[in-house]
Every structure is written in C-alpha cells, then in structure tokens.
C-alpha cells in the first residue's frame, strides 16, 4: 500500500507567496515508500524537472476548477507503481544514435519508421523517438524481435518519448 504525503500550496500561491521551499521541505521529509501528492493552481512544470532530476516520476492531472494535482513517486517505488516499460535493467543506456520525431505522422507510420530504423542499428545502440501517443502495438513487436524499450509521457502530458535499445539480431 502506497503512503501519500499531501502538500497543498494553493493557499500560498493565491496569497502571492513562493511555495518552493515548502515543497522541497516536504520532499526531503519523505520516508522510504512514501509518495508526494501536490496541489497547485497551475501545472508546476519547472518543479517536474527539478524533482525528475532527483529521480522522481510524476503523474500530473488537471482538476475540475483548473487546479492541478501532481503525484511524485520516488525511484524506489516506481517499479511497482508505474507502468512497466519493457526494460527491467537499471543500467545506464548510451546516448541515442538516432532520433525520430514521429508526432505528425499518420498511424501506423510512426511504428513502421521505428521498426525500420531499429533494423539498421547495431546491438546495444539506442534510438529515441517522439510520438503523440503510447505505441501499444509497437511494444509486443519490439519484444518479439529481442529489443528493449523505455517509454513515458513527457512533462507536457501529450508527447510520448520512447527509447529503444537494439537487441540481438534476429530474423522475424
């Protein structure tokens, strides 16, 4: 059972205050196994980056009144609380040798281009691709071909970024 610490900085923001210190104090006080649930009057994009660099994954959603709720999950909980990504190893991946921006392509062209690009890569090389949705049909195909991937929505909540590491060369 995940334990949440709630921080509501909406009163501080409405009063014209700066909530960064309040948030970081709460983050630093988190005990292992705890997540942070933050309420703000806007989507705190800079904070997402700051906590992202500290190993927190986030899940941001807009509430009915235009406020935002963001759940920050520390790295030690991510394996069980967020969608698995196909890559279970924690090792560092090399920088991508190829980058594709497939956001404006008609489906299924984004998937076709990723598969075609991965076929030309050496085992261990990494490809990065931007998409406008989670490529649910691509993942089983990558798995069948022995490739691994890591993927998640970007902080904008619209762009899906997937990294594919070419696996062993294997015929279809």
């Amino acid at each position, binding site marked *: 059972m995940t334990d949440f610490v709630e921080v509501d900085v909406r009163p501080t923001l409405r009063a014209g205050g700066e909530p960064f210190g309040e948030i970081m104090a709460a983050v630093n006080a988190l005990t292992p196994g705890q997540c942070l649930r933050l309420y703000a009057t806007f989507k705190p994009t800079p904070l997402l980056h700051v906590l992202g660099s500290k190993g927190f994954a986030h899940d941001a959603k807009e509430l009915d009144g235009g406020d935002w709720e963001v759940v920050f999950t520390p790295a030690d909980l991510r394996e069980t609380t967020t969608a698995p990504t196909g890559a279970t190893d924690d090792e560092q991946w090399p920088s991508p040798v190829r980058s594709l921006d497939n956001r404006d392509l008609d489906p299924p062209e984004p998937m076709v281009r990723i598969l075609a690009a991965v076929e030309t890569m050496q085992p261990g090389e990494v490809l990065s691709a931007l998409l406008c949705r989670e490529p649910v*049909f*691509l*993942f*089983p*195909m990558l798995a069948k071909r022995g490739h691994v991937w890591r993927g998640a929505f970007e902080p904008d909540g619209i762009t899906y970024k997937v990294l594919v590491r070419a696996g062993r060369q294997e015929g279809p």
Partner: protein
Amino acid sequence: MVGATLSRWSMSYFAVALACLLAGEALMVVGFGFPSAELRAPDSLVLVHLIAIGWLSLLMFGALFQFVPVLVAKPIYSNTLPLPTLALLVVGLTILVGGFLQLGGRIPALHSCFSPAAVLLGCGFALALWNLGRTLWQARPLPLAARFVTVGLLCAAATATLGFVFALVLDGSASGPPLADIATYGIPVHAIAGLSGWLTFTAIGVSYRLLAMFMLAPESETPRSRAVLYYGTAALAVAIVGGTVAIGMGGHPTAFLLVAGLLGTCALSLYGADILHLYRARKRRKIELNARMAAIALANLAGVAVLSVVLVAASQFEDQIGAIVFLAAFGWLTGLGLAKLYKIVAFLTWLECFGPVLGTTATPRVQDLVVEPRAAKWFWIYFAGVWSATACLLLDAPEVFRASAVLMLGGTTGIAVEIARTRLLLDVRPELRILHLARRPALLASQ
C-alpha cells in the same frame, strides 16, 4: 506483456455481426416485422434483437476485445474467453428469435424458448463483461474514453438483466408484481439502456480516441469532454435506475425519462461541440473514408436529437418513436459501425499479415489494402437507403420503406464484400503481397 496484441476472435464477431445485419435488412425488404407490423409485435422483436444483439452488440464486443487494451494500454484479461462467449451469444440469440417466432405463432411452442435463451444470453453477456471489466479494473485510474466504455458496459449489464426478467415473465417462469410490472412497463427502460447506454455511450467513448487517432487531432481530456461523461452518466442513471425503481414501486417511469432526456440532450450537445472541434483541429487535412463516413453517422446522431425535440414539441414523439429508433440504429450506430469496421479490418489485417516483417522489407501501407472510391459508393447507397426509409416511416409509407430497405441491403452487401476483400488481401498489388514472407490471414481468426 505490455501493450496490445491482436484479439484472436474479433474477426469472427465481425463476420457473425455482418451476417445478422444482412439478415435483418433482408427481413425488412420482404416486409417482415416493423413497419409492416406493430413495433411491439413478435415479428418486430425478432428484427429488433437480430439488429441489437446480433449486429450491434457482437460488433461492439468484437471491437472492444481489440480496443479496450488499446484504450488502457494493458493486455486483455483473456484472449480465449471471447470464443465461448460468442458461442453463448449466438446460440442464445437463435433461441430468443425462436421464442419470438413462437410468440407470433409462426413455429410450434412445444417448449418455451425464452428461459433457455435468457440463461444463454445472460451467460454470454456476463462472460464478455467479466473479461472487459477485469481488463479495465487492472488499468485504473482510467483515461476518459475508458470511463465512457465502463459506463456503457454497466448499461449493457442493466439491459441484459432487464431482458432476462422479461424472458422469465414471458414464458411464465416468473410472476408477481415487481417482475411482472417491470416486464409490462419496463420496455422503454430496456431500450434506452441498450440503445443509448450500452451502444451509444460506448461508441461515443471509443469515438473520442479513434477519431483523434485517425485524423491526427488533439486527444486531451477537457472539462467539456468530462461534462459529456457526467451529464450522460447522470441521464442514464436517472433513466435506468430511476425508471426501474419507479416501476418496481408501482409507478410509471415517464417523469424519470423526461429528466433523463433533458440531461441526455445536454450531453449530446456538448459531445457535438467536442466532435466539431476534433474535426476542425485535425492536422490531417485529407481524411480517409472511415472518418468521412463517421462524420455522416455523427450527423445522423444530431438528426436523431433534433428530430426527437421537434417531435416532442409537436406532441408526436410516441407515435413516431419507431422512426427515431430506426434512425438511431441504422443512421447513427450502424453507419458508425460500418465506417469503423472498414478501417479496423484493414488495420488489423495489415498488422497481422505484415507486422512481423515491418522494417525488414518493403510492405504495403494500410491504405493499400482498400479501394476507397469503390467502397464510398456503397456507403452512399446505404445512407441514401437509411434516409429514405426514415422519411417513409415518418410519412407512414411502408411499401416505399421496403424499396429503401433494398438500397440499405445493397449498400451493406457491397461494404461487406469490400471488407472481405480487404481481409483476404485481394486488393493488394501482387508484388506487394509478399506472402512468402508475411503471414496469410485466416478469414475469421487472428494469430
């Protein structure tokens, strides 16, 4: 495995569904059931259930077994349960049709068909809902489109439960005030739960995702799209729960249905605004046949809403309920279903056949599996038939209605042939077929 794989039996669902649609249209051509008979006559009930369960529900289940995993990015709970589910639904429907034929005196009634039909259909719906429900449950919190589908599935459960009660009362297995009252006065609630809740609400949810996906339109969840969900859910809850409770307590559901109608009109207006926005904000300027024909179906849904309001204002609603239901079933749901089926079969066939070799060799595009100008002709013939038939119902001209049904049958036959050609790759240029490398698809099952 993360992601979505091919739903093994969806093609079988689609084939049986299309066969039921063609059979239903053939019955209309020969003058069997409504409008040649009364809307509640046994012959009309044969026709209604052939379309509602045989065509629309099987189509919807076939599509959901494939697309709920896409909506929630989680695999289907079971890829094998859909086959026994299909068998239960088809046998149950066949026996139910037998029950209505007995009721009309067309076949001898040695043993009543209604109870066995109720049990088989009840089990079929329960299995389908269990499989889809488990898939949705493991994907919480659900994205917007999946929440629409969840409400739609709850309405399917309500529809099937009411139908179960009707069947037991019809063959005398159940009696007594609450159940008998529900069987007598609950038919509008049963029809609303099925047509508006299960079929329309689910189609609305899936349309948000599929239209955005195929037109490259923004797919974000907005306060307005959430309002469609809330107003629509409230309308369905008032109609189904309120209506059933009112009948169970010896009252009449009319007041609940009126309130539900108002809430439903709000939901549909907001949905209309969302859909206009989707079409206007699309990045893909030249859209495919499926999106163009879906737009016609959506216009028919708007037509259903406008026609309902006009007829209520003219105090003609109850007299013309048949025309409204007809336009909803054939102009909106069937139109959307055929348009999306045309795309879904092409996409799934392409994925199954060429997916394993994608990126390793030149493969056809999805659009190389279809010939849109040829199919467009059949869609227009179908819609012309629907509009003409609706006019005939409003003007009380049953003979011209049968001629319109010929157009519908001809159009549907043409579309069904096009879909079969797509599945069998008959329109792919031979040099691109590369069947020595790719997998040849079976007509009715996916591997």
